[in-house]
């Protein structure tokens, strides 16, 4: 009989209800209770009979396969294998050793400097470039996932003419003909529609090769509003660069600067470095966030205000007025009085909130920073700049730098030109404008007017379908190029592998169009490099400098120079602000606001065919494989929309969203923390033409997006349509209930009681004593341990994807996620806290295998497949595992993952086919695997290994280097796990506990270090640093911020030793 371990109950009336993970949990529905009390999520361990394979059929097939196995006995002996060396020895390459190359990933706001790990000639893992300040060795989920993008079997493989494959030669000939028809300066008729890659060589081409052509840059999620504001305020060609490291107070207005969309890892790290509290008295910055829907920035914030995106302008104006009223002089006062055409208050915002926030800003003059989200209109940005200027932040926490790209035409202008018939050749480079440009541009009609449309794209998509010529694009890991980082520094991009499908890079296509002859696109980039460095050095040693550039990945001291420009608020901006007044229109259930947001997984849709990105749970909603419209519980109640969990699957209502004569259908997910009567629509899904992974996932929010309301719109209405829709949420799987898991406190509290984490929940009562189990001797020179700082963790998921890439973790598909069978070794639990269902606080907690010293999983394994080693690792021997799953049952953290199917061998839509169905991994996907980690098969349990392959490699490399020496301990902090290496916030510390010099040994001695479920006496090697928030005590509601665990789970009056008597 199953013995049910009754976890000690929380005191009566203190049910721990304040940490809830979903609305179902808060309302404690019977279905949720049922879900909780099961050992495995419903369906996770069951054979479903409606999947087309009944038990009987299964046995029949098994019989057949046994018979076949009998016939096939002739293959008993090992087959002959071959060792195939190179003929000519390549330089640097030693088979079996990694090589690291510097490169950069083009992003719309500036490239991300990277270092790519290459194994026997194939890139297998992306890391940040440790030399460049914009990465410092860190990376994000998008960068990590580009490895899979490179090896995507569904990338475009051939040149197409009107949709039919042709060979390269035919295309080259056609290009020649086209060029001949231009003779006579028809350049004006040539138009480029390009994505933003921040590429200097491309800019050089634009000015040198195509000076008279139309050049239009389109990115669906790049507004340029911020730089437009900067240009208005300071004169053209500049942009502003915030310095989070210099700010003690950050006021973020609709700005998700902690999210990695724009690839700005420096902001994240700088901000988090100001938040890393180690001991009482340490300084900590403060974050105010104003936003319409929860973002990870809002989750990190000390004070968060829900505000519709369309009210933000009015809010910033109200803040400016409050600042003026509280005594801020400078041009702001004049500006505010000059444009005062607005209602006194922002609708529904507590006046005290604005007043106290303004006072706090004033107290932090020259050390604060007001950042405005890119999607807010230019006028709000101008106002933001004026506030920063008035607070003396300019040249302190905010500097003005030269912007290196020239602005091009915008897409509406291009559409007009095409409409006039003045474009004869349109070259579309990258992007997917037919899918993601505003719907008021009718590409189907427009492109018929252009005689020749050439499209360079990585996938055959909606844009390719309307183009005459489609050219496969080389991935950035396959091509030579260069880029500017966000601070304007000059980065190199080099190929890691020859183009897998014979694609062309954007530079190659442009050079061929212009008739530039070159042998290798390397020459094109070198030409630009020559131009850049010639200005810098008189003695010009090209080879040396070029090699240095490639090696480092960037040119030293090439960042854009800071410009000292004064900001003449009144003269420059008043007119603009008067022309563009800031209004807050009231919202209601029949007058909703739509907010188009970037999806945290597929960005603007470019990662929709990337299974890693599709499967990682959205940090806030925990949704996988598709998108849904998000709304607040109140809005849902008023509109009669419900979400319910049926047999562990989130069933939601579908609605028809109508705005300005257009409508779309979308499922609605109710999300606490969203502001009322605002609907967030994540873009990027609902693709018509894409690969198998992206096909049919989600709805297309671009279908409602028009050019003059591209980011938010007011006046939408929704109507419920029939039927329910099932979402794949990882949220309610594997719940740990009512225990003090995340522990947090406000800074003040921490300063008085740094030990607060030890006085919470059941752990405060649990006696610490000997264990009945025999602990294996752990006496090796390395004792591995990890610490995760809950204050700095944003829940961005970079670690999850890095782990997936490093450890060959398969994806399982939507259907399997719904059954709770996702395979990620790290899951990030997201908790809401506070009793207000509408406006809760949020916290993140990454959970992976805790490597317990007294591991409960080990004692139940009947075949010793999971055992302890002398370094304190709970190791997994896959080849011993017989798949009883006892270990997963006995794991209190529920971190073990079982291969219910051959996820690596089968496509996700063919998992249920019988044993005779074809198996095998596509060759391309095999290339993406880490050769140093076993690819697990069906029926095997797996879990986090602390990246044991890296640990072993580090130890071996060190010992091989030391040779005949007793020095076997690797130097402190010389090995990193994949998650730690990726984490842009440096929230994860890992290392050798026995080494006093190591960071981990120091972190573990901190007072607010605590272990999860410590009372079980299983001695986990992973511990957490309690979360600390820094609320402003004068703010309304400040007494509740960061206090949930203290109020609910801290038993007052207990002495530290008191617990022992219980």
């Amino acid at each position: 009989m199953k013995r049910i371990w009754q976890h000690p109950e929380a005191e009566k009336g203190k049910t721990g209800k304040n940490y809830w993970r979903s609305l179902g949990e808060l309302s404690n529905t019977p279905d949720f209770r049922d879900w909780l009390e099961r050992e495995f999520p419903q369906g996770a361990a069951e054979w479903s009979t409606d999947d087309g394979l009944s038990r009987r059929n299964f046995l029949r097939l098994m019989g057949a396969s046994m018979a076949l196995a009998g016939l096939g006995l002739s293959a008993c002996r090992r087959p002959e294998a071959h060792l195939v060396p190179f003929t000519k020895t390549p330089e640097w390459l030693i088979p079996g050793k990694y090589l690291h190359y510097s490169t950069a990933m083009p992003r719309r706001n500036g490239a991300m400097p990277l270092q790519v790990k290459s194994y026997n000639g194939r890139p297998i893992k992306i890391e940040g470039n440790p030399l460049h300040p914009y990465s410092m060795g860190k990376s994000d989920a998008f960068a990590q996932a580009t490895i899979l993008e490179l090896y995507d079997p569904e990338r475009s493989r051939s040149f197409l003419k009107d949709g039919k494959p042709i060979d390269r030669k035919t295309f080259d000939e056609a290009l020649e003909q086209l060029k001949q028809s231009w003779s006579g300066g028809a350049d004006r008729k040539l138009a480029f529609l390009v994505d933003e890659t921040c590429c200097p060589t491309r800019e050089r081409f634009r000015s040198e090769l195509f000076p008279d052509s139309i050049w239009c840059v389109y990115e669906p999620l790049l507004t340029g509003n911020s730089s437009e504001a900067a240009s208005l305020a300071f004169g053209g060609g500049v942009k502003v660069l915030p310095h989070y490291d210099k700010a003690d107070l950050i006021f973020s207005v609709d700005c998700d600067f902690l999210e990695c969309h724009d690839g700005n890892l420096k902001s994240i790290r700088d901000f988090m470095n100001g938040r890393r509290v180690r001991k009482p008295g340490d300084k900590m910055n403060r974050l105010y966030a104003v936003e319409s829907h929860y973002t990870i920035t809002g989750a990190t914030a000390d004070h968060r205000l829900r505000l519709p995106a369309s009210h933000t302008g009015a809010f910033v104006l109200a803040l400016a007025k409050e600042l003026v009223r509280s005594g801020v002089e400078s041009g702001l006062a004049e500006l505010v009085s000059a444009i005062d055409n607005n209602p006194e208050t922002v609708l529904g915002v507590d006046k005290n909130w604005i007043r106290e926030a303004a006072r706090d800003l004033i107290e932090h003059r020259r050390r604060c920073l007001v950042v405005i989200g890119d999607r807010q209109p230019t006028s709000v940005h101008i106002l933001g700049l004026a506030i920063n200027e008035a607070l003396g932040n300019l040249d302190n926490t905010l500097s003005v730098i030269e912007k290196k790209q020239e602005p091009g035409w915008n897409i509406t202008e291009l559409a007009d030109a095409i409409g006039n018939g003045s474009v004869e050749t349109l070259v579309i480079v990258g992007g997917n404008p037919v899918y993601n440009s505003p719907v008021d541009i009718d590409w189907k009609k427009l492109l018929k007017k252009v005689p020749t449309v050439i499209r360079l794209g990585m996938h055959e998509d909606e844009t390719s379908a309307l183009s005459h010529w489609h050219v496969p694009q080389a991935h950035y890991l396959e091509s030579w190029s260069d880029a500017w980082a966000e601070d304007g520094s000059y980065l190199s991009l080099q190929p890691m592998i020859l183009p897998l499908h014979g694609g062309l890079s954007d530079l190659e296509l442009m050079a061929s169009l212009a008739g530039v002859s070159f042998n290798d696109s390397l020459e094109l980039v070198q030409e630009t490099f020559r131009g850049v460095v010639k200005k810098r050095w008189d003695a010009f040693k090209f080879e040396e400098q070029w090699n240095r550039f490639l090696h480092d990945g960037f040119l030293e001291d090439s960042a854009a120079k800071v410009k000292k420009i004064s900001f003449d608020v009144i003269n420059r901006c008043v007119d603009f602000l008067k022309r563009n007044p800031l209004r807050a229109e009231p919202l209601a259930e029949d007058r909703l606001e739509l907010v188009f947001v970037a999806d945290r997984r597929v960005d603007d849709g470019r990662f929709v065919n990337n299974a890693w990105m599709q499967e990682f749970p959205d940090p806030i909603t925990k949704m996988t494989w598709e998108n849904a419209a998000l709304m607040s519980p109140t809005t849902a109640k008023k509109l009669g929309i419900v979400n319910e969990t049926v047999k562990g699957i989130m069933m939601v209502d579908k609605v028809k969203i109508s705005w300005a004569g257009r409508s779309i259908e979308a499922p609605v997910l109710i999300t606490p923390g969203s502001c009322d009567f605002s609907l967030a629509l994540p873009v990027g899904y609902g693709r018509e033409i894409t690969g198998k992974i992206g096909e049919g996932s989600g709805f297309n929010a671009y279908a409602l997006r028009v050019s003059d309301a591209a980011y938010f719109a007011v006046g939408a209405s929704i109507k419920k349509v029939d039927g329910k829709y099932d979402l794949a949420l990882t949220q309610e799987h594997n719940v740990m209930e009512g225990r003090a898991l995340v522990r947090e406190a406000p800074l003040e509290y921490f300063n008085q009681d740094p030990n607060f984490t030890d006085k919470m929940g059941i752990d405060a009562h649990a006696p610490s004593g000997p264990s009945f189990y025999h602990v294996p001797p752990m006496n090796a020179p390395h004792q591995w341990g990890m610490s995760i700082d809950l204050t700095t963790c944003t829940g961005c998921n970079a670690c999850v994807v890095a782990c997936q890439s490093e450890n060959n973790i398969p994806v399982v598909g939507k259907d399997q996620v719904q059954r709770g069978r996702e395979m990620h070794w790290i899951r990030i639990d997201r908790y809401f806290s506070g009793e207000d269902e509408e406006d809760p606080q949020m916290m993140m907690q990454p959970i992976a295998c805790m490597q317990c010293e007294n591991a409960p999983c080990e004692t139940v394994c009947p075949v010793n497949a999971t055992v302890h080693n002398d370094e304190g690792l709970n190791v997994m021997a896959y080849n011993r595992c017989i798949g009883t799953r006892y270990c997963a049952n006995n794991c209190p953290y529920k971190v073990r993952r079982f291969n219910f199917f051959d996820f690596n061998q089968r496509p996700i839509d063919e998992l249920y086919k019988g044993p005779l169905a074809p198996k095998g991994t596509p060759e391309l996907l095999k290339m993406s695997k880490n050769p140093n980690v076993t690819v697990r098969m069906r029926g095997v349990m797996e879990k986090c290994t602390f990246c044991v392959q890296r640990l072993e490699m580090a130890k071996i490399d060190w010992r091989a280097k030391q040779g005949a020496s007793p020095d076997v301990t690797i130097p402190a902090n010389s090995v990193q796990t994949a998650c730690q290496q990726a984490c842009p916030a440096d929230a994860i510390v890992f290392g050798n506990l026995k080494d006093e010099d190591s960071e981990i040994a120091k972190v573990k001695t901190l007072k607010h270090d605590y272990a999860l479920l410590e009372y079980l006496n299983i001695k986990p090697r992973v511990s957490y640093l309690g979360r600390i928030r820094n609320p402003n005590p004068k703010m309304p509601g400040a007494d509740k911020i960061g206090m949930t665990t203290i109020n609910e789970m801290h038993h007052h009056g207990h002495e530290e030793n008191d617990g022992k008597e219980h």
Partner: protein
Amino acid sequence: MANIFPRWTNWLPLKLFIAALVLGAAVVWGVTYYFTPKYTRVGYMPQQPVNFEHAIHVNQLGMDCRYCHVGVETSPNSTIPTTQTCMNCHKQVKKDSPALAAVRESWETGKPIPWVRIHQVPDYVYFNHAAHVNRGVSCVSCHGQVNQMRVMYQDQPQSMSWCLECHRSPEKKIRPMNEVYHLDWKPESEKAQLEMGKKLVKDWNIDPPKSCAGCHR
């Protein structure tokens, strides 16, 4: 009185007998298959595309292992020499020998020589050469007296228990660093080996991994 046993039981003894025969045969087959050196492939000596003789190169010419197997000191893999390595000498030495036709062809065409793999641990085993040769484990311990082999063959079973024998008592096999690549080197006696081995294990702080993660990841 009705029959106590149903009719089909008449055939039961025969059926049992046949079943026992089949089972017995399976056991015999299993033992001969799994319990013989053939299973571990000791003595496996396939025909190579080039009749390369280690004996000539090492013993007669005195070449060091590391001239061809370059990566052995730094990499998990011991590099199989590229055609270029062969041609470094054979451009001058024996440049027209018919035995080297395949090498010359590879050099001219750029097609690699497909050497037949002899030593192969399962895919889930991550053996590392560098970890061993830099810590006093000689080539000879795993590969046998390659310097005397005219044709390369597998000398040791390379099974898990065989690995663990040494990992549990490294003092039996460990030797001074300068003798690692001297395949003919032998300790004076077993006792001398043990004495020296114990000292080296202590001096070099040697503690070979005996838990799963050392080799399985």
